[in-house]
């Protein structure tokens, strides 16, 4: 059977590839991603399952699933032109992706299907740093985290649990890493941008609390606190935390090896290995 061997929480700031190219391998972002890449390589992953919030690029307001799985041999990205990011084609595992979707639906989650799809920076930017050769296949699981109404945190955690069970029931011996992509507090393009910037961190106190809950494995508290109200209080893309919560559901209640914050961006880099 397939085994989940690690959980990762990753940021996906679209301008990071540009900054790292400009500022070199000793800048903070390069080092934080390099540390995670080293941890990821040590897990020898066969497949990455990534919980992600599409930024209205794979889907749009004409057809917006709360949950969806990408099921195909490959997908492409980024489709939203982040600077200094090449066009990638990423392999996937459609039979396992289809199995995850089937098992989640059987468990009561109405998970939409997407095929022949492309993805945006929210999946590609972390992979650009963590698996730049794109040698590890990726299965995206999409959670609607920007446009209200958001799925409840407890529901996202339970989806993660269902995905974890689906992986455990897959007959091939694969080593699976589960990732959650996104910020804890971030406003993009809205009135809570910092002066002169295109983004801002409206609720740094929430970032600190989220990191404490993650470090202490206080998952129930995190879920209880991560109401829709709190997520939007933390910014118009604050719902991206739901991807981390789904990842926690998949890996089970564990303490992380580390959660390294980048407070000025309202996000963190987390590694759970065992």
């Amino acid at each position: 059977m397939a085994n989940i061997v690690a959980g990762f929480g990753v940021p996906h700031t679209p301008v990071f590839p540009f900054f790292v190219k400009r500022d070199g391998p000793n800048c903070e972002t390069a080092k934080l991603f390099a540390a995670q890449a080293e941890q990821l390589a040590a897990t020898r992953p066969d497949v990455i399952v990534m919980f992600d919030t599409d930024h209205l690029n794979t889907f749009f307001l004409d057809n917006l699933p709360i949950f969806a799985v990408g099921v195909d041999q490959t997908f492409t990205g980024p489709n939203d032109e982040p600077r200094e990011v090449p066009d990638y084609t990423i392999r996937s595992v459609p039979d396992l992706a289809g199995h995850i979707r089937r098992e989640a639906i059987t468990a009561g989650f109405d998970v939409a299907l997407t095929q022949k799809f492309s993805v945006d920076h929210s999946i590609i930017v972390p992979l650009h740093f963590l698996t730049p050769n794109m040698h590890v296949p990726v299965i995206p699981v999409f959670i609607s985290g920007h446009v209200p109404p958001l799925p409840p945190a407890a529901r996202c955690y339970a989806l993660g649990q269902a995905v974890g069970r689906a992986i455990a029931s897959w007959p091939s011996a694969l080593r699976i890493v589960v990732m959650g992509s996104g910020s804890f507090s971030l406003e993009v393009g809205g009135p809570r941008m910092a002066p002169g910037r295109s983004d801002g961190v409206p609720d740094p106190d929430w970032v600190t609390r989220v990191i404490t809950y993650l470090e202490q494995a206080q998952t129930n508290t995190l879920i209880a606190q991560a109401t829709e109200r709190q997520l939007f209080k933390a910014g118009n893309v604050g719902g991206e935390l739901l991807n981390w919560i789904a990842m926690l559901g998949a890996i089970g209640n564990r303490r992380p090896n580390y959660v390294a914050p980048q407070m000025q961006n309202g996000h963190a880099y987390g590694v759970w290995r065992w």
Partner: protein
Amino acid sequence: MSIFAVNFLCREVLRDHAFRAAMKHDPAQALAGKDLSDAERRALIGGDVGALFRMGANAFLMAYLARFEVCGLNVDIYNQRMRAEKIDELGRPLVLDQPA
């Protein structure tokens, strides 16, 4: 609900490079065939992103107008206009405008 059209064309500025160029060159011309209310059209052409926000436009999508510098916007102007908006604790407009 033509605010959908506003949101959609914000993303078209990202996706459709010919439309992006047209919006840089002459927004009124580029928007001529679009299904917009008069208020939406006026706000778009004037880069009045605060008014569009009050009509229900998606801020994340409107940021493409600043990123690609159409309708007289850039990051600084966009930032000033959006930051001037009155919002509630969840970042929503305090006053909603009718898109009529």
